[in-house]
């Protein structure tokens, strides 16, 4: 079943929303209680607008030639980042996580009358899709570990060494035929925008090196640097039943 619609008992707090807005929630709470209230309202509203979907496919690696990783389904992934992390992979898992388009539509509709709420709602969506992606990656890491395989760090098109547009095209090609949820624009933008595309490599000889931050163009200049990626959230129950 390559498309999941998880039964996700998500919780989003005002602190989560402010975090997604790259704002220090403690400082904001002291200075601008109104913004905490806006964030809280946005978090509550967001929960009614999130439709999580995970589209995934596992494909065995066929060969590596030059800077290209060829897959058994005749697709390929290319670039220095791919080679660095996936050269020892026996399988790759290609996936897209999305929370659907309802939230961003609402955020846009609020943007004229209440830009502050609109931005908070949009940020709640960013938080939710990032959280979904983190949960899904952790699930699959455990899934492969239990089968004696190690996993690479999650790789996203647009990271240093994997150009955005070619990378997105490669991901979408692998998921062709099973993905009707998320579309790709000519510029590499996904619709719904609250979507994340990921490739995870797995194999007995995989060397897990670095962190995602090391390959991000914001490296060293980001609000999120050195801040915990972990956010408390109830697990996605349906993911416990994933089968590849």
């Amino acid at each position: 079943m390559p498309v999941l619609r998880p039964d996700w008992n998500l919780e989003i707090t005002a602190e989560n929303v402010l975090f997604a807005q790259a704002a220090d929630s403690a400082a904001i709470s002291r200075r601008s209680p109104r913004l905490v209230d806006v964030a809280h309202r946005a978090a509550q509203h967001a929960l009614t607008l999130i439709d999580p979907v995970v589209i995934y496919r596992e494909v065995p690696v066929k060969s590596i030639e030059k800077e290209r990783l060829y897959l058994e389904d005749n697709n390929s992934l290319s670039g220095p980042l791919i080679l660095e992390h996936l050269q020892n992979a026996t399988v790759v898992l290609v996936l897209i996580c999305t929370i659907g388009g309802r939230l961003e539509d609402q955020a846009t509709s609020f943007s004229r009358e209440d830009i502050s709420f609109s931005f908070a709602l949009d940020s709640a969506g960013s938080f939710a899709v990032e959280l979904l992606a983190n949960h899904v990656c952790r699930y699959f890491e455990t899934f492969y570990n239990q089968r004696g395989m190690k996993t690479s760090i999650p790789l996203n098109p647009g990271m240093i060494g994997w150009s955005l547009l070619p990378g997105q095209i490669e991901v979408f090609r692998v998921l062709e035929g099973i993905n009707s949820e998320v579309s790709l624009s000519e510029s590499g933008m996904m619709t719904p925008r609250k979507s994340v595309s990921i490739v995870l490599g797995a194999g007995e000889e995989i060397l897990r090196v670095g962190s995602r931050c090391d390959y991000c163009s914001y490296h060293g200049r980001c609000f999120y640097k050195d801040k915990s990626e972990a956010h408390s959230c109830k697990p996605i129950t349906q993911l416990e039943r994933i089968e590849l």
Partner: protein
Amino acid sequence: MDKEQVLKDLCEAVIEGDDVKAVELSNKAVELGLAPLTVVKEAIQPAMDIVGDRFQEGEAFLPELIVAGDAATASLDVLLEQLSGEDSAAAKKGTVLLGVMFGDNHDIGKNLVQAVLSANGFKVIDLGVNVAPKAFIEAAAKENADIIASSTLITTSLPYQREMIELLKAMGKREDYFVILGGGPVTPEWTQKIGADGYGRDAKDAANLCNKLVSGDYKPGLDEPIIENALKSK
């Protein structure tokens, strides 16, 4: 409440992003006989400068900038009603015509730019989304704009940015307005290639860019565009 206190409280209300209080105090200032231009210069502008500086220094965050911009705009709406046309223009750093280019309807980023530019003392005319090149130019003339700011998130709208500049040239109006660009697929190289005057990667960059353009000795139609990219320069 004396005049000095009103100005002080209004400044604080804008910094705190309290638009209701900012409007009340702006009305109070008018009732007390304070000249609107004085209120702008001694309360609104300092507040916007303080918030802008804090944001630049990483001491304030984007949501705070947005609500401050909202409060400043609400206050200015009250005060500018009281001003003559000449004084009204003097109260602002400049007029920025803002819109998402034809073929694109993604407007959250554009709305953030609007809030940040307002917080920096610019009069912002928001044309919305899916704006045709000619509509930008017609509105620029109507609003006596200083800067035309066009953004897009999709590559298929990029050619319309070039079309707008070519149209300005053909109409003999290229030297009337600065043209600045932003948006996901827009790059400094594209900005240079089509002959725009500046590029900003995000809302903060857009404010820096506009401040430079209106405060320097620049004239529209720069040979080399000004590139603002806080990410790269850090």
